[in-house]
């Protein structure tokens, strides 16, 4: 193990610029994950009424705090998606390095261990920064933190690097490094794996339970079963949209590749047809955020209408609007993280193919064609999936409006439909941030080396 650590340290120290990008972004991802998780455990460690004096008293009572904790934990979903993308930057270089290790006599298990230790060290750096900052903040604002808080901090600070190591091992499960010095990536399945199907069945089960629960308690129990139903519907929508990305990517690719006469569309369509699930993995977090953001936009409109119609509120109006605004901020942060992951994924895709792209440009293929193909690879599979996720979110918003409608005056939150459009446009912009990299990626120098 000591040798593995030493080798991992040497490999990190000797990394080139692209590797440092991966290391820095991975550390930032670990920092965000640790930050959100620490905030969640510290808030979760508070017991009973605890006046914090922030956000109009929104964090003072256990009920609201629980909602904030759940929101913080949900933010970990896009953060982990971002971390997954970061792990893929420079994968080609890393894979070659792994082959070099095998050639030097390392066993497959050693290679995986070294890669995992390397990822763990990177995550530890991000986690340490977030932990030190959080502890300082905690000590300054909370004179005697509880034992639960300290225990939670320790678990998170160590848990994030361990999670990073596990993710690294998971990412390497399809990489076979040969002692002869070559590396090959075992092609992923062309359809959803058993784990995905089991998860989908589970989600559907949760939805069914929620529905039955609501039916049993129609009336007084609807308030309790409502959030569960919302959660289940969101999960089913997200899972279905994820599956749809792959299915429509393959169908779109097949249909367009057979008919198009445009080179950019042909290149994008064939890439989708060749590996439709690569796009599904990248876009999963986008679809979940789209569904949540669309649903929230609808719910927000309804909540504000309810607030406006109430003559007597249990607390100040600012208390409620602050909660709504904080939720909006959380969703906005999730969207930014997700879009960052998408941009990183697109850049990684360019970096991986740079030698082939350089050869295309050398053979006279205009950079504009390659740039359009790059954008279409994002635009084509996302269009139907974002639409479905948006409709799912819209259904939740509309359903919530119907649930809270006591006099038939509640309007349908049509404005929420703008959310998927905005997310789609933002995704294209995020993908377009890689276009400047195209010029640098297709340098003739790439033609000189294998």
């Amino acid at each position, binding site marked *: 193990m000591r040798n593995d650590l030493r080798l991992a340290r040497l490999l990190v120290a000797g990394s080139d610029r692209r590797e440092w990008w991966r290391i820095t972004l991975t550390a930032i991802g670990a920092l965000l994950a640790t930050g959100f998780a620490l905030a969640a455990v510290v808030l979760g460690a508070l017991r009973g009424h605890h006046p914090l004096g922030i956000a109009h008293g929104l964090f003072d009572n256990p009920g609201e705090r629980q909602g904030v904790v759940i929101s913080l934990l949900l933010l970990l979903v896009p953060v982990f998606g971002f971390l997954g993308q970061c792990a893929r930057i420079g994968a080609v270089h890393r894979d070659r390095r792994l082959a070099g290790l095998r050639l030097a006599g390392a066993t497959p298990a050693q290679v995986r261990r070294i890669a995992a230790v390397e990822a763990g060290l990177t995550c530890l750096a991000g986690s340490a920064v977030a932990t030190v900052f959080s502890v300082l903040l905690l000590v300054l604002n909370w004179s005697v933190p509880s034992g639960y808080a300290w225990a939670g901090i320790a678990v998170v600070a160590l848990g994030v690097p361990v999670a990073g190591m596990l993710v690294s091992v998971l990412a390497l499960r399809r990489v076979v490094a040969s002692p002869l010095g070559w590396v090959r990536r075992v092609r992923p399945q062309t359809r959803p794996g058993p784990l995905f199907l089991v998860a989908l069945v589970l989600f559907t089960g949760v939805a069914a339970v929620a529905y039955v629960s609501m039916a049993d308690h129609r009336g007084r129990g609807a308030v309790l079963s409502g959030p569960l139903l919302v959660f289940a519907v969101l999960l089913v929508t997200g899972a279905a949209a994820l599956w749809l990305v792959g299915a429509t990517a393959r169908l779109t690719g097949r249909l367009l590749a057979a008919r198009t006469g445009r080179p950019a569309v042909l290149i994008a369509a064939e890439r989708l047809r060749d590996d439709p699930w690569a796009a599904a993995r990248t876009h999963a977090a986008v679809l979940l955020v789209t569904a949540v953001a669309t649903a929230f936009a609808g719910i927000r409109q309804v909540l504000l209408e309810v607030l406006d119609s109430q003559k007597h509120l249990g607390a100040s109006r600012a208390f409620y609007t602050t909660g709504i605004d904080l939720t909006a901020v959380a969703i906005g942060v999730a969207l930014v993280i997700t879009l960052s992951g998408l941009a990183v994924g697109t850049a990684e895709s360019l970096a991986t193919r740079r030698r082939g792209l350089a*050869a295309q440009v050398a053979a006279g293929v205009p950079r504009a064609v390659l740039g359009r193909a790059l954008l279409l690879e994002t635009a084509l599979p996302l269009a139907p999936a974002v639409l479905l996720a948006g409709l799912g979110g819209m259904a939740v918003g509309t359903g919530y409006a119907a649930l809270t409608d006591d006099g038939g005056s509640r309007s349908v939150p049509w404005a929420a439909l703008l959310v998927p459009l905005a997310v789609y446009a933002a995704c294209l912009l995020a993908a377009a941030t890689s276009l400047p990299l195209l010029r640098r990626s297709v340098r003739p120098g790439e033609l000189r080396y294998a």
Partner: protein
Amino acid sequence: MTADNSTAPLLAARGLVKAHGRTEALRGVSVELAAGEILAVTGPSGSGKSTLLHCLAGIVRPDRGAITYGGERIDQLPEARLSELRRTEFGVVFQFGQLIPELTALDNVALPLLLAGRGRTEARASAGEWLERFGVRGQQELRPGELSGGQAQRVALARALVTGPEVVFADEPTGALDSLAGEQVMTALAHAARESGTSVLLITHDARIAAYADREVILRDGAEVAEGADAVEVSR
């Protein structure tokens, strides 16, 4: 067939100088390529062969010197015009990597025609004919990863020739192949070039591959050390 050298060269370079950082890859190289000629540029690794090809094909600009194609200076053309030139007048074949891995062999060959604005049906028909000529029609629906090295290089040759270029630049086209596959590829290239009157600039360090050429130029340390019959003598 030997090219007629009495006419003006189709492609000519005078005093080319090109440095990669502090390393001078080319130090005043001059070379000419006649219409229909197959010219081999040979030399050891690091002698500047590939850099010379990149300069002549307009992939990189020389630091000094001049390149003319059909009497026109091309080393100062804007990138868009150079790109068009490479797409229409030139064909390029590398050791590997020039085929798009996600496209079928047929679509890879049809791509330059689609880029030139030809219709899909017409482009695929022409591509099919070229694949037929190179004996890989049966593999037209396969992707590059599913082809053998020799088949992939023949598809690459078809792609380089499908637009009817005046010059084909081939950078170690058989470098990744065994000798039998290499010979098959070179035979196909030389035959197609002579049949269509296309000039070929062939980069190689293999004397057997250079033997397919009408003429040979040897580079060493970025400078031309021998040409023609002298080159054969130096090779020995």
